[in-house]
């Protein structure tokens, strides 16, 4: 799996969780919460969907790794490859 594909996986999940948000112009280096109306429950949903759709477990201590798209890709790429 490529970094671009992992990025798309995260975008797809965010689009389902927060369907009112526009995900087209996101800055991959910036915190997702700075750019969208996401709260802690939304991040729990992201973790849940990663587990359900892609069998990836994200332990609680790793939640900060999901802060930006770049950090998501860096964290998830080895798990999804």
């Amino acid at each position, binding site marked *: 799996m490529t970094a671009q594909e992992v990025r798309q996986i995260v975008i797809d999940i965010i689009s*389902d*969780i*927060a*369907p*009112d*948000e526009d995900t087209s112009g996101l800055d991959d280096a910036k915190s997702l919460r700075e750019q969208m*109306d996401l709260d802690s*429950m939304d991040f*729990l*949903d992201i973790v*849940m969907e990663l*587990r*359900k759709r892609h069998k990836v*477990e994200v332990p609680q201590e790793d939640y900060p790794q999901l802060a930006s798209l770049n950090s998501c890709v860096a964290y998830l790429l080895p798990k999804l490859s």
Partner: protein
Amino acid sequence: MNDSQRIVITGIGLTAPNGNNLSEFRSALLENKSGVRHAEIRYMGTQAAGLCEFDEFKYQSKKLRRRGTRAGSISIYCANEALADSGINWEGVDKTRVGVYLGITEHGNVETENEIFEMHQNNLDWKLWSPHHNPRTVANSPAGEVTLNMGITGPHYTLGSACAGGNVGLIQGLQQLILGEVDLAFAGGISESPQTFGIFAAFAAQGALAHHADPTLASRPMDKKRNGIVISEGGAIYTLERLSDAKARNAKIYGEIVGYAINSDASDFVNPNSTRQVECMHKAIKRAGLEIRDIDIVNMHATGTGAGDISESQAVREAFAVSDKTYVNFTKGHIGHAMGAAGALELAGNLPSFDDNTVHPGMNVTELDPDCAIRNLVYEKPVKLNEVKYILNNSFGMLGINSAVIVKKYIG
């Protein structure tokens, strides 16, 4: 009575299987337009059900709809529609003095079933159980979603009262206004029941789930060939205010709630008790300071079960034996049984009678069950009266809860 102790209806928001506002709903009732259709129910396949088609996103974002429940979505739609109908624009309203009181038959079945289903689809992985399950299933959830949506900071809770819920929500709203706890009440009832297979399965197990090749004919209270209940969703929320406040802002007034009663059968989990039903209706009439002959329309609970309709027919015959001017109708032939919404929804369907003096008919009575014969029973065709001044609305539920609400035509 002092105007500050008189409670009036100043706005109505509703969604029914055959209409998404009072005007649409009333027309459908007068024209015998059914809202029942076939739906695919998990595990059980095709079943008759009453489903609503309101715009879920008219007042709620997609994200919060996803986070909440169908019951919350129905509640938010109805509360916002009621607010718009009332003419209140929040200006000058102290939101700490606004309450939300919603009757429900049950809550949480839908979400719990969904979580268990998902877990079974994923090798019983319990870690997939949603963090939203708790806030979705706490019993105050639908009313709480309304406060979140509208920024209301006064009290909110639901009234768990089986299928008497709609009436009980209205009664609670009225009582809180009279007590001075709030200045504006959003009160009524809601139902999301068709979203859960368990309710269908349980009624089927009781031999009380309606079925017919044509779903629009499945719900047929009082008919000789009725075979049970059609499960429906829906909601009706009213804005209730003190008459003094309504007058001060020159509000449109649908009617005044002048009587009510709630009692218990104390006799069976599911079978009704006509003696207690008579007591309930008479208690409401007495509280209103009326004579039995004063009631112009009685809306029956009439769900379409064999025993339930016979029991209530017996009760209405007895309760109104002395009145030849009381007309009787029912609503579930059109929309099925909207459970916690039924009381408030069905009452709303009759309120326009104060203006048009017409009693809407009950629907789907091809051959009246002789055991359900009642003097002045209105079915298949509307009946025009000289004047409608008082409506009594029955709503009964399991565990033997009975409720009646009486609304008086408001003459300014």
